[in-house]
């Protein structure tokens, strides 16, 4: 190489190296997403590739496989898990066992980066940690783009609860009894949840597979009511259907029904704006999935 060009190479290196900015995907301004202000914590990031992906198939899950609270974890269908040693566990037990064992950040370092790392850290419920440990989704949802590909994804599960910034609850979560004072209100809602799994096709094009499910929350806004929503992909899809080469997923929902019910009084429908309703998603699991 011409000796005169060598110093230029030294100066070019920083210029060339500046083209990356890969870690910038994982940074946020100030205390975004962990603010005490409810409306500041919505995570609405959409990866451009996933947003423009073609949705090639839609599956509707009809089984009501969810639990009302961690205390009912034993109701999870044993088919969802290869082993089910976690039946009958309490919330903290669930986190310390199932959460610790199947959290995605155990499988690869990529799950440790970004706001989405809250979904892969094994923390499956609030436990007083509030916005620090969950992703707050608006109905337009969010996407998570992964920098690695999976092999076959057999299971997908999410642990979440519904909420609004209208902190009204009726059930006494200490005694488990319905409050019986006249005028007490509780929040009931139903959503159409769509989990989209994005995979690379044979021609390396990203396509989306929608998994839809109607979810009812008789106790929206109650801090103790978590929903463990899991399914086996091959059970939902057609025969020989598999999800493989997963590169991302998204969560969106539509609120189909939402009302504030007054105890022992006539039902009162309440108009809620889009800013009011949210899903608090604590964890996403994809057990027995390998990444490369």
């Amino acid at each position, binding site marked *: 190489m011409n000796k005169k060009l060598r110093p230029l190479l030294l100066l070019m290196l920083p210029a060339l190296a500046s083209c990356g900015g890969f870690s910038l995907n994982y940074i946020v301004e100030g205390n975004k997403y962990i603010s005490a202000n409810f409306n500041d914590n919505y995570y609405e990031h959409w990866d451009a590739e996933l947003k423009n992906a073609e949705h090639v198939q839609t599956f509707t899950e009809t089984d009501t496989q969810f639990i009302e609270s961690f205390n009912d974890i034993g109701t999870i269908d044993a088919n969802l898990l290869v082993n089910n040693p976690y039946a009958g566990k309490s919330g903290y037990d669930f986190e310390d066992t199932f959460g610790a064992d199947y959290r995605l950040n155990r499988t690869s370092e990529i799950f440790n980066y970004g706001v989405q790392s809250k979904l*892969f850290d094994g923390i499956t419920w609030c436990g007083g940690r509030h916005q620090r440990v969950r992703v707050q989704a608006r109905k337009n949802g969010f996407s998570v783009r992964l920098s690695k590909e999976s092999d076959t994804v057999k299971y997908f599960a999410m642990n979440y609860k519904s909420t609004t910034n209208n902190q009204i609850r009726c059930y006494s979560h200490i005694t488990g009894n319905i409050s019986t004072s006249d005028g007490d209100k509780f929040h009931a809602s139903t959503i159409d949840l769509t989990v989209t799994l994005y995979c690379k096709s044979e021609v390396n094009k990203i396509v989306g597979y929608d998994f839809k499910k109607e979810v009812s929350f008789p106790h929206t806004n109650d801090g103790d009511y978590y929903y463990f929503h899991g399914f086996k992909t091959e059970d939902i899809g057609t025969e020989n259907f598999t999800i493989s080469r997963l590169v991302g997923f998204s969560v969106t929902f539509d609120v189909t029904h939402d009302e504030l019910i007054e105890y022992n009084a006539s039902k009162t429908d309440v108009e809620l704006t889009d800013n009011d309703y949210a899903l608090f998603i604590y964890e996403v699991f994809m057990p027995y999935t390998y990444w490369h």
Partner: protein
Amino acid sequence: MPKFEKLSKLHKYSAAVSFLAMEIFALVAFSFGNNFVLYGALSLVLLLLLVLFNIKEITVDGVSSIALFFLPLFLFTVITALGVYMRSHAYAGHFSNAELVFIPLGLLPMSFAGYVLSIDKTFKISTFLVVVYAALGVLSLINLIVNLVNFGPFYSLIYKNYYMYYGGTISEVAVGDMAYVLEGFKFIEVRMERYLLFPTLLLTSSIALFFVSPKEKKLFITYCGFSLVGLLALAFVPSLKALLAFVVILVIDAIIFLLKKFEVLRKPAKYVLIVGVALVALLALAIILNNQTPLGIHNLTAGNALLNRIFNTNRYISKINPLTYNILCSDNFLGFAVDKSDTSLILDPANPVYPELHMSNCFYFDTFMTSGVIGVLAIVFALFIGLKGFKKYFLSEKDQFYSKAVLVALVVFYLIYIGLFNNTEYGVFYSIYQPVFISGPFMIMVFVLSYVLAKSHEVKPEVKEEQPVSETNAEVNINE
């Protein structure tokens, strides 16, 4: 010594050992693997080889030249390795008890190697400097490139108030105060002080540009290259700390240059230095005494706005004060006792002022924790003796002046850096605990101080026994 005659024949191969020494210095300066056990093992092997190949050259008088540096260093390393503080960190899993042995085994051989290499004619200090700075340069360049790839140029200013999510939690430090460095064999996020250490050490090579003629093209361009890489690494990751460090380097360069150029300044500079050192010592004493509650000095300083700011409330002193609170307790004379289950140092739960302690940004005060009052006195004395050796070294005819200037700039800057910007727990998302005395640059500094002391030592001339005049000769003389 007839029994070493066979070994002395190995001396002709000492050039190979010098070359090995250079490689080891390069690895240590590069912080290769960031493993002090590795450095300790390498320096021990190096010492054994150096002694083996230079046995005939080693003299008692020569060894005594570094005694005043070596012995307090020995005391410091042994107290630290056996002290309750480091053993508690071993209990916490940061090190194993066996690894602690490499604290003295790493530093002491390095110190002795400084003496042996000073008498080895195949060892050139100019080559040592090029090797060390080249290693620092490569490391600085690698770290710079990784930061540019991950964050882009000037990110520390652009994203000053941004935070990074990792493992589901938001970082304690802002993006503007973190950087990627090669740590061991992977790149991890660390606090800015760790990133800045290597390019700022590299930039100390800039003093050579004042004393190397541009006509010595190869040498001049080499040092230009070192300085340029250091400057680029600071410029593309700008921060207030980088600016402060840069100013300190400029001041050191200016002082060395002016003292060389204007002999008339040397005498006043000596007195300024003495006064400066005395002031620093008094300030350190005042900080310690301010935190001894029975003396009541704290009430005085708290009552005056300026004194309160200096001694109690500024961000820097607020990290140091907790360390000095209990240093005179007899329990802590050889290092602080820690809660083994949680080395966040719950020294005394009943202590209403400072129930928890953490390392400060100042190595000299942190040493109260790791090695106690005795350890601090030992290391400060050793460093004082080492620095004092520079005076004789500068005045001696040995080694080229630019090498001497670079050595003093390197050592003085490093000692200032670890006093102002040290960060023992510099991992942002990973738990890293690395006290200064098990780091590569500290070992290099120990070697340099020993070398300087040994080099400046005046070798006593051999006293030859007077041969008795023979009777025959005497008769001849008389007859003549």
